[in-house]
């Protein structure tokens, strides 16, 4: 099977290891990974900053970069949700076909490849801060607000790694406060939210903090480092691909 890797612009520039680990992980399960350098940004930052015209132009470009039939796999729930839910709103029904073949990385492994265990060892206590858009827009887990059967696709993959202990933090799927433009429009509230998440995850005993979204982790890592916290941040792709935590 072939898949197009959709690398979020900030991952490309600020945390390339997330995309490299994603490619390794997909290849481990027999996927031929392709990367089109025509891709840049899905347009979400501009849509959420109140610039829909700019967002539409970038979304159009993004759609063109992923023409074809291949599944598009993205190591960011938020960018995947943008392509799946906002693209048809911005570009019309013509983009529905693309929207229908976009997947968040873990979602692709579980739903399309049928992966139940990724193998490897990671003998640490891991706290999962799920991306809000993964939980509430892509349905990667049961949102805490919803009534229904429990499931957690990302958590299940992590738990399949040898030695990995998944810890449960209070208010497990509460927003970390990143929120894109929110993090600079309302930095005080944004930081307060992030510090509260860090406190909850530390109280639960986490050594490593992971997420489907590197954007949330960049925010949390900045907060943790400023405070001298011992929590280490790793994207879920890095853990699943067998990378070691940063020093």
């Amino acid at each position: 099977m072939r898949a197009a890797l959709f690398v979020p612009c900030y991952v490309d520039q600020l945390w390339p290891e997330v995309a490299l680990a994603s490619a390794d992980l997909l290849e481990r399960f027999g996927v031929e990974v392709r990367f089109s350098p025509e891709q840049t940004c899905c347009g979400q930052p501009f849509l959420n900053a109140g610039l829909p015209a700019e967002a539409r132009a970038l979304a159009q470009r993004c759609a063109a970069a992923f023409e074809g039939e291949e599944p598009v796999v993205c190591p960011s729930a938020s960018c995947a949700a943008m392509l799946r839910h906002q693209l048809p709103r911005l570009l019309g029904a013509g983009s529905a076909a693309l929207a229908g073949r976009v997947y968040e990385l873990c979602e692709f492994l579980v739903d399309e490849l049928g992966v139940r265990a990724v193998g490897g060892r990671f003998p640490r206590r891991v706290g999962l801060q799920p991306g809000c858009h993964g939980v509430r827009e892509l349905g990667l887990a049961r949102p805490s607000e919803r009534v229904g059967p429990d499931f957690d696709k990302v958590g299940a993959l992590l738990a399949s790694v040898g030695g990995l202990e998944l810890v449960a933090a209070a208010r497990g799927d509460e927003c970390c406060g990143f929120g894109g433009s929110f993090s600079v429009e309302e930095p005080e509230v944004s930081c307060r939210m992030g510090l509260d998440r860090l406190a909850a995850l530390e109280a639960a005993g986490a050594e490593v903090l992971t997420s489907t979204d590197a954007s949330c982790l960049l925010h949390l890592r900045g907060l943790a480092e400023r405070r001298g916290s011992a929590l280490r941040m790793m994207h879920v792709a890095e853990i699943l691909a067998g990378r070691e935590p940063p020093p």
Partner: protein
Amino acid sequence: MRARRDAAAAALPEWERLRERAAAIRRHTLANLGAYLEEFERNATRLGAHVHWARDAAEHNAIVEGILRERGVRRAVKSKSMLTEECGLNAHLEARGIEVVDTDLGERIVQLRREPPSHIVLPAVHLRRQEVGALFHEHLGSAAGLDDPAELAEVARRALRAAFLGAQAGLTGVNFALAESGGLVICTNEGNADLGMTLPPLHVACLGIEKLLPRAADLAVFLRLLARSATGQAITAYSSHVHGPRPGGELHVVLVDNGRSALLADAELRGALACIRCGACLNTCPVYRRSGGHSYATPVAGPIGSVLGAAREPERHASLPFACSLCGSCREVCPVRIDLPLQLVALRGRLRGRERTPRRLALRLAAAAMARPALFEGAARLARGLLAVLPESWWRRTPWGRGRARPPLPRRSFREEWRRRGR
């Protein structure tokens, strides 16, 4: 509150179906609002109520003042009504010599403090019991230092009882108005609306035109959702039905538009009219919970208040739609499934469209660079280089760097590394 709501919702296996049903009923009602309003007016009039129509807050206040003045009312009691907060009714009546006593305990507390409610269901949630004790000591003559919640409630109860007995009119809000019967449903936990509308001979009920439900049977959906979403109770302590005036009494119903028709005509935002004012979106919102209701400076705070406030007065409340991380929790708790994040993003587009600021210019330049992969790569490499060498004093003055350490910067971007590996 959020935990109590979750437990109450989880106790009903049909919860998600109830929400879907409620959303469908509200959509249908709003799509046929004109017809249902006329049906309600016909039936309420047949029951002996006087129905008034107010285009805006000023008309609403003038109508209520007129009703009270014609009957020589000097003292009135009022149960909780976010609509009268929105219209500024208390200030209007007090300026004209009519005393209004709020009878909901939380409302009475913020009224004595001369401040607006900070929450639509829990008006005084921003106060501690010690602050309430000091307030009651000053205004109601309770003992200094009294801060036991039950004893404070008893102090308020005694003071309010006198207000009830001396009132010549009872003003109330309305939770639901039923088109098929012309009836009103008013929900409280304290029974204060019931006293207010049965002791004095005159009852004036004020409601926004969106409060309509087609049939009494619809209450089976909404009464189950309302209290569970609001406080985690199975049902409010009192769900009172009013069909016409009590014997020998008078009932006036004031239907208020005040911008609701304009919202109904707005395809992107009309869903906000489905709101039943349960407060669940406030209770779950991570921003509301940290910044408090007064920071919104709108009659209704929280996610729904950001939409209603910015839709009504875009200039004044331009910052509200941006004060949201778009986590989506409000949409998931909403008993009528209002897509608040989507509405907030739509409002951002309208508000930012008017701006001419450096930040907007920078964003547009970034968007232009992103549209050309080679330019994006070059500009981003330059930015990474700058970010690495700019002094820490600069970093700490940026909105991002004030609270967050600078990220370690990779030598090569992913696309550079991918190319280098010959992929």
